[in-house]
């Protein structure tokens, strides 16, 4: 992610990130992209593959 792309993303999020910390964040942004790639199997998932549901609804 370039600095320009990061600055635009942070502006959209409304975060007042100090200038000296932006380089660190830009340099680490590839970690998010790598995780995102790992979450997606090469051929995609079956459209009906459900997410995990871990929070119960109250019992009626």
């Amino acid at each position, binding site marked *: 992610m370039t600095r320009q792309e990061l600055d635009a993303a942070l502006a959209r999020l409304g975060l007042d990130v100090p200038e000296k910390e932006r380089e660190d*964040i830009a340099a680490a942004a590839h*970690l998010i992209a790598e*995780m995102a790639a790992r*979450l997606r199997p090469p051929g995609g998932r079956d459209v009906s*593959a459900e*997410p*995990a549901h871990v929070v119960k609804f109250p019992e009626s």
Partner: protein
Amino acid sequence: MVPDFLTIAEAARLIEKRELSPVELCDSRLDRIARLDDRLHSFIRVLGDDARAAAQAAEAEIAAGKYRGPLHGIPIGVKDIYETAGVATTGHSKVMQDHVPKADAFSVKKLRDAGAVVMGKLATHEFAFGGPSFDLPWPPARNPWDTTRFTGGSSSGTGAAVAAGLVLGGTGSDTGGSIRGPAAYCGLAGIKPTYGLISRAGILPLGFSLDHAGPMAWTAEDCATLLQAMAGHDPADPASASRPIPDYRAGLQSGAKGLRIGLIRHFYERDNEANAATRQAIDTAAKALEGLGCSVRDITLSPLADWAACGVTIMLSEAYAIHEHNLRRRFNDYGEIFRDRMALAGLITAADYVQALRRRRELIAELDDAMADLDLVMTAAAPSEAPPIDQVPKFTIMNPPSLTIAFNVTGSPAMSVCCGYTDAGLPLSFQIVGKRFEDATVLRAAHAYEQATPWRERRPEL
């Protein structure tokens, strides 16, 4: 004269026989805190008067024949994300330094009901996530085995305070390893119980679907005692399980014979390569478990990075949502590590989050299948002994992949167990993991291992 170090079990036996006064025990810990905590910074707030009053009440009840059980009169510490009535609960952050709850967290109330004496509020990484940070209102906790070393986090104060004998046990929380990491680096026993076993109501959240509350203590037996008090259904927590709570301490006596254990060696030999001392200590621990009558065989799961990508994406997304309001308005009131990790979290998309939840379902099924003919799995809890406190990278949660978050993804009970020391005297550990709601089996194996090895006999020199 009260010994510097006592386990909960040892102190409880003496208190029950009225050979140890809860007031003397409390005062001895307050003296120890006053003497040592300037170097350890494990406490954010010591509650001396409240603790002494609680100890006096315990002593009077016991003298009147109303002994409540093995936590009666036992000094404990509470991580400062657990709400305490009338006492500030800050998350170790400027953002909430004036937050004074009206009520105790459900689990704190249960510990008090069991007779435990709350000595104070313990240091944490900021909101159980940033850290170790040097730009917060309180300094980070230091490792009692070597105060230049990291305690692990985020239950850093609990790790330091229990290892140093300032309290006999304490509470932690674990969203990606925050009980098991400090337990590993500080040489404790620490269990992240099954998701839903301990209520999260009244505990500041980090990632709702991954947050687990749990105990930390010197031994597995003491963890069982604390877990017994903390576990139980709470309608205020929508994820709280409603099922009978077994007798965890009674289960310890069954021994480890016959337990079938899968060793996930590739997690720490290939995916997040542990150092030689850690690998050797785990090999020796596996042999010791075999010596106790367990069978141990290697198993292979998806690469550790897959588990970490799933868990970290969920954790960051949920944490960002929790803190979004304050991040927009008070970004620079957070410490640098927390706020910059949150800025990265803001780059995760909604689709990423849902894909992580879909991956989570697959990974849960994968572990369940792998454990179909096993009782437990074991692997490393940390890739090495505690590193220097000033050499922990800002984005360490994402790289290298966490050895612990896999079992937050699955909600499984997972425990750090001390399995030796480096030549420099720093603790080493392994992680043992059970099937959901089979926490008793984890504790049973850990207890048998501790009884068969000498590692619980050594304490830090302070």
